[in-house]
């Protein structure tokens, strides 16, 4: 397995280089550049020219890229051209927030969705099944920003129960911290829960018809044991694949949710970087998110292998 992980990490390098090239050139296709953003209404062609040559923006783009990626390989992500802060330290400030949001959303979604999916399969065709099916439809079709806005309307503006936005770090106490993330987690996690629930239900329906389930019953296993041990463990195999795909959604969705709830995470950082044409910050952020994405997927693959003994790492 160690070999497999190493192999996956090596494959990740060209993928990351590809992503870095795309980001690098795409952001430069957006009209305006760092200098126009910095100068804003005080734009002066002479000053602009001076700034551009200081930042190296007058060099050929390919050369700019090679210089930047060279630095990245040495562990230097550069500094924000807008604030002057080192990109890495900006990322390190924001990363925990996004990670907490995404992981909490994932965990809460799984804790709710998997038992619901199992129950829906076990009681398929009954009211409980239809109720969870309706929730599934709702969760999949409702956009997360709309759900987030609705939650703010109800719980902040009307009921005054929860803060409408902003992030409370763990240092403010775990209660405050969770309170600030409750609505974002619901807004972001609902779709994940819905998709996971549906796939758990269908996987479980298939599994419950398998001969080994009948065999477990013939062995004298109780219904609970048949479902939660013999059934679920098998159903989790396809469910894990679906969960892996959801990770991408979670990271992408957090960009929007951070915006809705004014959470200073990576997504918000990336949006700021785009509107400021803060090239090095944006490049660093995207690269970082890509690395995170690849690492989480690798983790999912490893878990997948633990659940499914038929997988052999080659």
């Amino acid at each position, binding site marked *: 397995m160690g070999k497999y992980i190493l192999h996956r990490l090596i494959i990740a390098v060209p993928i990351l280089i590809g992503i870095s090239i795309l980001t690098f050139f795409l952001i430069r296709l957006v009209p305006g550049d760092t200098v126009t953003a910095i100068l804003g209404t005080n734009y002066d062609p002479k000053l602009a020219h001076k700034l551009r040559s200081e930042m190296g923006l007058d060099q050929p783009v390919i050369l700019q890229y090679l210089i930047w990626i060279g630095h990245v390989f040495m562990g230097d992500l550069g500094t924000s051209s807008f604030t002057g802060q080192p990109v890495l330290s900006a990322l390190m400030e924001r990363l925990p927030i996004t990670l907490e949001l995404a992981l909490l959303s994932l965990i809460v979604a799984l804790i709710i969705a998997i038992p619901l999916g199992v129950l829906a399969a076990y009681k398929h065709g009954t009211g409980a099944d239809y109720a969870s099916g309706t929730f599934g439809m709702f969760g999949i079709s409702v956009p997360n920003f709309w759900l987030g806005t609705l939650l703010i309307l109800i719980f902040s503006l009307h009921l005054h129960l929860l803060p409408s936005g902003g992030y409370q770090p763990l240092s403010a106490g775990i209660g405050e911290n969770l309170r600030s993330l409750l609505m974002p987690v619901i807004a972001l996690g609902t779709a994940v829960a819905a998709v996971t629930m549906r796939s758990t239900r269908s996987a479980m329906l298939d599994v419950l018809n*398998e*001969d*080994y389930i*009948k*065999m*477990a*019953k*013939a*062995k*004298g*296993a*109780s219904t609970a*044991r048949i479902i939660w041990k*013999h059934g679920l*463990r*098998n159903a989790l*195999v396809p469910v894990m694949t679906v969960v892996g795909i959801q990770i991408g959604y979670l990271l992408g969705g957090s960009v929007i949710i951070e915006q809705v709830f004014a959470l200073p995470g990576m997504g918000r950082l990336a949006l700021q970087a785009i509107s400021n044409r803060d090239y090095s910050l944006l490049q660093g952020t995207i690269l970082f998110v890509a690395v995170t994405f690849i690492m989480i997927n690798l983790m999912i693959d490893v878990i997948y292998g633990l*659940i*499914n*003994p*038929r997988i052999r790492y080659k």
Partner: protein
Amino acid sequence: MNDDLLLDVRHLKAYFRSKQRTVKAVDDLSFTLKKGEILGLVGESGCGKSTTTKALLRLIGNQKNEYLEGEAFFEGEDLIKKSDKQMQTIRGNKIGFIAQNPMSSLNPVFTIGNQIAEVPQMHQRASKNKAWAIALKMLQKVGISDHESRAKQFSHQFSGGMKQRAVIAMALAGNPSLLIADEPTTALDVTIQAQILDLMVKLRDETHAGVLLITHDLGVVAEVCDRVAVMYAGKIVEQAPVDELFHHPQHPYTKGLLASVPKIGSRKKLIPISGHPPNLYEMQGGCLFQERCPFAFDRCKKTEPPLHKIAEHHHSACHLSSERMNSF
């Protein structure tokens, strides 16, 4: 009551109901099984053999569309009256079940040892270590070589014959007094079939468990069974000790079955029974076999022949055999 009597099934009925019709898969089945005896239940595919095993294990009868009636006394207690909770303590413990398809009967995500150890864990509240030791012993007993490392493997690492051995080990892990095997060798190739049958006979000799062996293969019956019940369209039509049945078949259906079995070294052409079994949902009156029976006569259309005693331990449900008896 006979001390040797292990299973006494009386008038067992198992029907599947749907909106349009009722399939009488098992209809008024009665038979007995003694300790240490191997009873073969034979019949064409679809005649209700598997349904009989499922009814005895009470794997059917809990759904709205499944109807179960009759009695099945096992060690003196009626299985049909038991609740599902009570059945959980009997299945796998007092009654071992060997499934038809070993390829799909093992759970792919647990080790073979784990699945066997689960039986003593559930039924004897054995500790993990104790249960594992039992699993190893069972694997050894069913002839799996290198059983200590095999126990840690998964079903996809086992061959077909080994899987069936593992299933047998699982069925025997609770030390049952009754073993129900539903076509345990059908999915295997011929040499493996013979090995598995030998193993079952050997285990019967060791444990003195009663065995209900379901098969559609008369060759299997001849090889291992003590007694045979021939099933047709949900009913038993003939019942006799193996030698008696093979040498003096009484029921026309049994005769037909025997005529369609290839004999080693024989060049005689096989004569398959013509026609098909009746639909189990729109049965007309009279003998169920009348459409296919070369000897059918008036009475066969009007009244259904009951299972009639024609000799000590030999029963047949045919008007001809009962008439012959009456004419003596």
